[in-house]
């Protein structure tokens, strides 16, 4: 159930600046693209300043918005008519409401920190300026995505972030693997995007417009159940691709080929949450269908468990985090599938903090160990990289759900809703997922920071420069404090979002305090167990893994989904394409053309034998022809 219709606010000088929020990073991107090389290190600071300014501006605009009464917290800024064909119009409209306000604050806030971090991380890279151009372009596109006032503008941002993702995953393109990962990411998400595009066509067909207000406001009344299901599932296709949900999740682990700040910003904190945003934004359409939300729930649940278990057996520190991201996004989908949109958004915000923190921490570790990403080669970094380790451990605890850090409240809320709305199975599996996440993140922490150093690189690891350390501290504070969004009664995120996405469902079940206690226990027990296995020295975890074979290998390969796609999708497609291009087109269609041409030549070859080249034989034929004609004419008359 979605909140009552909002009335749009009038322009005020502050609200009128909304367009600058995406425009600033885009302008900085253009500057860095053309003059990045000349700016040298200043390129990074320019980019950070642009995103920082966008954050300040966002904060001002959002503060102005929240000064209005709850039912008037909507501001639509019409910039210009983008497409106009007859009655069909698409405007370049920016839409600020509580939902997009939340998103722009997260994007610019976390984005600023990651930009600052990247100035240190990318130091000395020959394409330093270009990196920040892409990163700014990404922020601009992401802001367009969440601020877009209609589905098409959202789609513009949607594809724009996909482009930046492509460029940044393949940023170090000299490595073939990176380039492959970039292409895989773009193509895989494009499959989902295309479903979404068809969904947009469906919306135009049914509504004649793509603006959020008319479409979402009339969705329940206009759409039949079948049409609503079709649109919802097509949009979900896009969301699944972008948010790396099963079955289109395969690109995200590979996307870790990009520089670590990219992984933190794009593949953890912001872009991949766009799918969740889309589902929440389109909630009225999903609700008009009897099956769409249950499907969202199942997708989320399956993804959460699948990715969580896969994360357990990864050896690359970034791949652990990648699978973890997929799993957490699954959690958000679960929440959305239960109509707990505000809870999904809450987890989204909290996740942005602690996952960005974890990635930047991992990046700092990789930086400190000169590019080493294998967990098995780390160990004992707590002593050598104290700031990085301490902040990252905050992130670990936050992700695991240790009270009172961010994820504790968010997951707790989701599990409570599952329990209280009569979904005991979802609740049980969700709790299992929470345990799994505590296990994999605990394993990561224990292997990387505790125990003894297991390689030369780990022994010689050094702390990162302040531009990298400071954002870590800021994010750690955020990850620790994000839970507050759920504590302050009037400032609660759920309360603020209510006019846009409706109230969080309530019901009866196991008392909330019991559920919370259980949730906290799961986190603590999970972390403790990993400490025993991986860091206490009492268990030989390598022996343990060897005895569990082939399960670790299967989990490490992501349940062989990638291999199966390669075998059963990619290979047959390529074979078919090769047949069509090499045989059907070259020999079939073109062969037919050549056969016709050959036939004409063949006939001509026979025919030309008449042409002997002897003038006198021509004359003879001529003579006989003339006589034959004469005879013919004579016979007729």
């Amino acid at each position, binding site marked *: 159930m979605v909140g009552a219709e909002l009335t749009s606010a009038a322009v005020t000088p502050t609200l009128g600046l909304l367009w600058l929020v995406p425009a600033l990073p885009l302008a900085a991107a253009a500057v860095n693209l053309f003059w990045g090389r000349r700016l040298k290190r200043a390129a990074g600071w320019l980019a950070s300043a642009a995103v920082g300014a966008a954050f300040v501006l966002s904060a001002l605009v959002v503060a102005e918005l929240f000064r209005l009464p709850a039912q008037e917290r909507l501001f639509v800024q019409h910039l210009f008519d983008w497409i106009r064909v007859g009655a069909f119009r698409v405007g370049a409209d920016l839409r600020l409401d509580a939902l997009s306000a939340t998103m722009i604050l997260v994007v610019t806030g976390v984005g600023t920190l990651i930009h600052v971090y990247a100035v240190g991380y990318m130091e000395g890279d020959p394409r330093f300026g270009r990196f920040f151009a892409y990163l700014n372009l990404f922020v601009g596109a992401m802001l367009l995505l969440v601020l877009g006032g209609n589905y098409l503008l959202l789609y513009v941002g949607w594809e724009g972030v996909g482009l930046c993702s492509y460029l940044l995953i393949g940023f170090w393109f000299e490595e073939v693997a990176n380039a492959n990962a970039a292409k895989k990411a773009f193509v895989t998400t494009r499959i989902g995007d295309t479903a979404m595009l068809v969904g947009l066509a469906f919306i135009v067909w049914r509504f004649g417009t793509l603006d959020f207000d008319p479409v979402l406001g009339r969705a329940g009344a206009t759409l039949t159940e079948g049409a609503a299901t079709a649109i919802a599932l097509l949009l979900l296709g896009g969301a699944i691709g972008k948010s790396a949900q099963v079955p289109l999740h395969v690109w995200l682990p590979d996307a870790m080929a990009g520089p670590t700040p990219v992984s933190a910003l794009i593949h953890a904190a912001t872009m991949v949450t766009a799918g969740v945003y889309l589902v929440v934004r389109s909630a009225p359409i999903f609700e008009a269908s009897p099956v769409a939300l249950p499907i969202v729930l199942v997708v989320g649940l399956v993804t959460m468990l699948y990715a969580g278990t896969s994360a357990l057996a990864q050896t690359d520190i970034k791949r652990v985090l990648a699978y973890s991201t997929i799993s957490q996004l699954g959690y958000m989908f679960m929440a959305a599938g239960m109509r707990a949109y505000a809870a999904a958004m809450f987890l989204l915000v909290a996740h942005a903090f602690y996952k960005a923190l974890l990635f930047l921490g991992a990046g700092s570790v990789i930086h400190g160990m000169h590019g080493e990403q294998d967990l098995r080669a780390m160990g004992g970094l707590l002593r050598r990289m104290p700031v990085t380790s301490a902040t990252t451990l905050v992130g670990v605890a936050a992700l695991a759900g240790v009270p009172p850090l961010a994820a504790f409240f968010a997951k707790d809320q989701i599990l409570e809703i599952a329990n209280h709305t009569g979904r005991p199975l979802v609740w049980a599996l969700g709790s299992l997922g929470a345990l799994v996440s505590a296990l994999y993140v605990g394993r990561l922490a224990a292997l990387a920071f505790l125990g003894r150093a297991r390689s030369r690189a780990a022994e010689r690891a050094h702390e990162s420069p302040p531009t990298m350390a400071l954002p870590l501290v800021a994010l750690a504070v955020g990850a620790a404090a994000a839970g507050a969004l759920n504590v302050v009664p009037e400032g609660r995120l759920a309360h603020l979002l209510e006019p846009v996405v409706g109230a969080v469902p309530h019901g009866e079940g196991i008392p909330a305090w019991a559920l919370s206690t259980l949730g906290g226990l799961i986190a603590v027990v999970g972390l403790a167990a990993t400490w025993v296995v991986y860091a206490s020295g009492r268990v030989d975890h390598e022996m343990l893994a060897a005895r569990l074979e082939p399960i670790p290998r299967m989990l490490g390969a992501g349940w062989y989904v990638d291999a199966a796609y390669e075998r059963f999708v990619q290979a047959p497609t390529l074979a078919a394409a090769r047949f069509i291009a090499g045989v059907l087109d070259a020999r079939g269609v073109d062969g037919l053309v050549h056969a016709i041409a050959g036939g004409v030549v063949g006939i001509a070859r026979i025919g*030309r034998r008449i*042409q*002997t*080249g*002897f*003038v*006198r034989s021509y*004359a*003879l034929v001529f*003579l006989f022809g003339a006589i034959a004609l004469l005879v013919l004419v004579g016979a007729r008359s």
Partner: protein
Amino acid sequence: MRTPIAWFVMLSGILFALGSLGVLIRRNALLIFMSVELQLNAVNLALVAFARMHNALDGQVLAFFSMVVAAAEVVVGLAIIVAVYRRRQTVDVDDARELRW
């Protein structure tokens, strides 16, 4: 006394047959050319004879036409033959087969 038309036609036929034979069996382009002229003149003879028989001028006019065209043709034809001879030192038509295919 008028010579019967049949004589003219017969003479014309003989001349034409001679010309045709010349075109068919000669290999020298110049002689072929002369034979063609013989054929043309055979036809001219027939034209004039028939014109006289019918007391009409049409045939005579046609004969003039044919002569004018023949003259033009001779100019072009001889020029070609001379050009071919300059190039190849021969006017044997059986040797000139390059344009066959």
